[in-house]
């Protein structure tokens, strides 16, 4: 009983934190800047690649394992050697873990810019389909091209926190929760910042924003860069927790369309609403996944994962038809009160004079 409860808890925390980061990242692009990002999985996949393909090889170098095609071919053995090396060097393990997260974020930002640059001038449907196609090309490529992350076989990822023994899972989960909270803070900070307000201005009227001297293209690129960096973090954390990097894990349904459904349910443009929707739906999904067989016996042997599709589909349809603003509608974002701004201005001026 206890074990079952623990299993559910781990599953729920895992699902909530990964999809919270993803949905918030999508909310920055879709909710703030109105970019139809149907290629969310690209950034997440690159985040996974950063951990499995790059940091995995760095670890292999440190542990004296080959990093060429033999790394992929004898992956199980190489990872075993790396893990026994890492369990004796806690400091290096932690450094590698941090490095993995940083690399994934940087690489995510890079892929975001690379995908949006050729497409940024396109209008709605064209842009959406182009982003979707680029993501599909990337996934198909990584699935069929062995040397990077093992293609159809995938690669295992070093267990960075193995030196903690029994505590490695809870610590990894805690790290994921921490990252999710940080992502929420970042998304909120962007929402309140001048950049966030500029994004909303572009969303509401591109022409008006341009008239007021905003560089629309630049701000759109920023939005995709930030969003993709966050999504890559989600991909990296997923890879670290599941212990393997495999291109076909990053399907269109779970990594692009689910976050879309969540932000529509929660309220496009509202971080709090999106988070609420992610928590509710991820808990529901975790339970459907865990109690699949028990549910099926009550449902004339229908696989509940099909019901999951129907439920998600109906949520998207009903929300769009009857409550397009979502569970929590977007509220106007307030800047600092006038008095505070005056104070800051005075202080800055004084500092200038004194220096």
């Amino acid at each position, binding site marked *: 009983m206890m074990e079952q409860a623990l299993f559910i808890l781990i599953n729920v925390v895992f699902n909530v934190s990964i999809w919270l980061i993803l949905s918030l990242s999508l909310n920055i692009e*879709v909710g703030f800047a*109105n970019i*139809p990002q149907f290629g969310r999985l690209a950034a997440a996949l690159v985040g996974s690649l950063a951990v499995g393909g790059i940091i995995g090889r760095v670890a292999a170098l440190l542990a004296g394992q080959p990093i060429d095609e033999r790394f992929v071919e004898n992956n199980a053995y190489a990872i075993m050697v790396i893990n026994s090396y890492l369990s004796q060097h806690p400091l290096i393990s932690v450094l590698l873990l941090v490095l993995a997260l940083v690399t994934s974020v940087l690489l995510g930002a890079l892929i975001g810019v690379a995908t949006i640059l*050729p*497409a940024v*001038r*396109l209008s*709605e*449907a*064209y842009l*959406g*389909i*182009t982003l*979707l*196609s*680029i993501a*599909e*090309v990337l996934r*198909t*490529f990584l699935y*069929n*091209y062995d040397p990077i992350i093992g293609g159809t076989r995938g690669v295992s990822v070093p267990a960075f926190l193995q030196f903690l023994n029994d505590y490695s899972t809870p610590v990894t989960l805690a790290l994921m929760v921490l990252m999710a909270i940080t992502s929420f803070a970042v998304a909120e900070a962007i929402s309140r910042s001048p950049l966030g307000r500029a994004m909303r201005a572009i969303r509401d009227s591109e022409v008006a924003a341009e008239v007021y001297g905003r560089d629309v293209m630049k701000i759109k690129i920023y939005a995709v860069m930030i969003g993709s960096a966050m999504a890559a973090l989600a991909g990296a954390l997923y890879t670290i927790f599941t212990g393997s990097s495999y291109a076909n894990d990053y399907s*269109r349904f779970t990594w692009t*369309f689910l976050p*879309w*459904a969540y932000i*529509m349910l929660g309220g496009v443009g509202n971080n709090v609403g999106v988070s609420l929707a992610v928590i509710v739906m991820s808990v529901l999904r975790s339970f459907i996944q865990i109690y699949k067989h028990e549910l099926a016996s009550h449902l004339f*042997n*229908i*696989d509940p994962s*099909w*019901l*999951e*599709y*129907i439920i*998600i*589909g*109906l*949520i*998207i*349809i009903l929300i*769009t*038809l009857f409550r*397009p603003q979502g569970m929590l509608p977007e509220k106007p974002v307030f800047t600092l009160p006038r008095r505070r701004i005056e104070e800051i201005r005075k202080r800055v001026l004084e500092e200038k004079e004194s220096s």
Partner: protein
Amino acid sequence: MSIVMLLSAITYASILAIGCASITLLYTSTRVFNFAHASMVSWGFYLTFIFYNLFGGSPYTYMVPASIIVGLFGVLTYLLVLRKLIRSKASEITLMMVTLGVDFVFFGFLNILIDYFWYNYKWSIKTVNIVPRDPLLGVISGAPITAVNVVAPLTAIAILMALHVFLSRTSLGMAMRASIENPVLAAITGINVDKIYVLAWFIGGVLAGLSGSLLTMYTQGYSAIGLDYAVLYFAGSIVGGLYSILGGLLGGVLVGFSERLLTYYLSFYISGIYAFRFAIPLAMLIATLIIYPKGLAGLVERR
């Protein structure tokens, strides 16, 4: 150049073109980029197989009922979901998203249907392969010609002719063109735009179903076959420009041909390229959009 390869490419291009025409028709008429296309194709694919398994005979006879059923799905989608949104002038992205929801619902029900036959009748239905049962029509210089090699191109040509005659010779077709060009003006002249949209969604559904139905004889597949091919359909219709149905057909042909033939030619120089064949049409799509942001139809558009 082997004849087998060419025939296969023509067949494949025709099947894609029919599906691309569906996406283009729905986009020009109702501004909806139909994500539900994926599952509509899957439904066409599976309905053909299920009818064939239930009643026997030639699978080609079930092209008609299968595509009409999918056409009715299209009508339902329009009436229950899209009409309200189109009337309230929802944005393109909203319309796309809502058809994605429709896609999930269709996909879920299709899989439930598949499970039903799988549990109760023990059919091997999870993956469908009736390609070997396609009748052989003849052999040209050692290349076997199966029925689908003839039926698919003929269907594509027939659809092209039928759409052309329908849009340019019949009053209903002209009403449809008028509603596409300028819905407000069309409504003022007494055209029931709503009925035209229903018709557009019916034809769109029929074309998607037909494309899926033809795939049954061309390749093996499972319930997500539409999802796997969706990106190619999208690529074809965008390369075609999304604004003319003829453009959609052309784009589909171009994408289908380039995927098959370019892969074939490149395989002499680059080993293992077959696995990456999906990347070719998508690279084409991206290149087209960068050079002609409105697609190929922008080149041939008459104004």
